[in-house]
């Protein structure tokens, strides 16, 4: 008998849960507002015996959303989709949160998000996301006023073609960068290339074509001229990415400031 007890008692300790509370939304709200993550996780660990499975996943989804664990959130969200989408505060917050997450997770969230149950706010965020993905098809007037300028800047960069920038730079060094939207770099590229061109020309004229310094000068000019052409082509693509990220960052700031949503309201 004592042997059985000695073996079983520690095992019972392993599976014993100290409390057996019902899911208390107010307490969860309190823990979340005070950022007591350890306590919130402990509370959620205590829930399984009492609450239905999908609502447990729903609470975990909220917890992961607050702590920024995106992949865990997405997995918990998938298991409690209906419950989560009914909670407009949480789904709005998730929408805002995913605007500035890495492209892969962002896409995963917005493709899995069910728009049918969306509020006007979630539809507006969705529109911003769609505009960031397909800027040429979006209508800027449907976006919030404060994001319109950012969006127009972003869309403008999509009208710019990399090959046109490269051609412009081939004609006048730096012009392609100006076209891409990099004004300071354009000026510097022009000055640098002009100086190298002048040096190469002078060396050619004064020292002759076979002089080592002339060959070096022409080589250096050729190298930086090529770099300028390639740089302009590269700048167009870079500026597109930068303006997209900037647009999304401003959108996230805008929604967080104008629609302060709380997870547990």
């Amino acid at each position, binding site marked *: 008998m*004592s*042997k059985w007890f*000695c*073996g079983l*008692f*520690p*095992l019972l*300790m*392993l599976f014993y849960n*100290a*409390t057996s509370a019902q899911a208390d939304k107010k*307490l969860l709200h*309190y*823990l979340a507002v005070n950022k*007591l993550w*350890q*306590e919130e*996780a*402990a*509370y959620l*660990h*205590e829930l399984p015996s009492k609450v239905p499975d999908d609502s447990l996943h729903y609470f975990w989804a909220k917890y992961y959303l607050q702590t920024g664990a995106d992949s865990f959130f997405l997995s918990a969200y998938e298991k409690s989709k209906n419950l989560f989408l009914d909670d407009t505060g949480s789904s709005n917050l998730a929408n805002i949160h995913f605007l500035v997450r890495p492209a892969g997770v962002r896409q995963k969230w917005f493709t899995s998000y069910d728009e049918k149950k969306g509020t006007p706010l979630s539809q507006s965020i969705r529109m911003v996301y769609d505009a960031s993905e397909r800027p040429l098809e979006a209508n800027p007037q449907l976006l919030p006023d404060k994001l319109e300028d950012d969006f127009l800047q972003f869309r403008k960069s999509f009208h710019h073609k990399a090959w046109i920038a490269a051609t412009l730079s081939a004609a006048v060094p730096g012009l392609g960068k100006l076209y891409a939207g990099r004004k300071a770099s354009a000026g510097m590229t022009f000055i640098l290339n002009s*100086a*190298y061109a*002048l*040096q190469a*020309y*002078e*060396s050619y004229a*004064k*020292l002759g074509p076979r002089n080592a*310094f002339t060959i070096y*000068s022409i080589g250096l000019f050729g190298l930086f001229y090529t770099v300028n052409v390639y740089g302009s082509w590269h700048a167009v693509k870079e500026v597109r990415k930068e303006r997209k990220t900037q647009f999304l960052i401003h959108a996230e700031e805008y929604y967080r400031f104008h629609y302060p949503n709380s997870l547990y309201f």
Partner: protein
Amino acid sequence: MRRSTIVFIILTACISELRSQDFFASDLLALERKIYVCKTDSEKTPFLIQKLNLYISRSDYSMNALKEARRINYELISMPQQRDRFLWNAALLCQLNQQSDYAIYYYNRYKEKTGDSSITTTLLEILIQSSHDTSLVSLLTERLSSKDSSFHCLKCLNTMGSYEKRNRAAYILSSVVVPGLGTALEGYPLKGLNSLLISAAITYGVVALVQSQDYPAAILIGAGLGVKFYIGNIRLTNKLFTDRESRQKGMLAENCKHSMNELLKKYPLQFK
């Protein structure tokens, strides 16, 4: 029977360790529930203190523990002994988490309330103030030295803080006059020679280009490379000087750390 008792103890110990993390979080939650139902801050305070003590008893001195300490209003602690203990613990916790401004605040309140001038208390004050008030640190060191001569070594805190290598301007001026000279005099002859050779090569190149009347190239190389390397040589001298000074300071700090370590072994600072 004896064998089963031993098995029982071992199994219980292992599983307790396994579950301690869970129990800790559960204990925190249990206390937080009590705090949650309290109506006033004074009702909450004893539970907040218990929570902080739970962290301390578990040797968890992380930011989470500090966060708990910062939730407590010390004026609401009714028992003076408990309040003093809290102020001491909070000061130590802040210092452990590099929050010296808060540490100074809690320490001053502790000193105000208790008037404690024991060696360990002064030692904590020295540590807290070491990067803030060097004159106070030297005063406290004097005070401790009069109690125990082993505290003489703490004078190193002031030496270390105010250490400055001399003649920086002279080295820099040497590099201005002859590129690389200051660097070489600082004990880096190869780097100095390198500076000299580069400057000489650029000067030679510019002169040659001027002689061949290739003025654009001369201007480009002179103004571009020449100036960059000349100023670079001065900056390098300055940087190497600063590096040496920092290295010297680091060595002083290492010796001081060793002395302080011995003192802290003799007079350990612990949570109350």
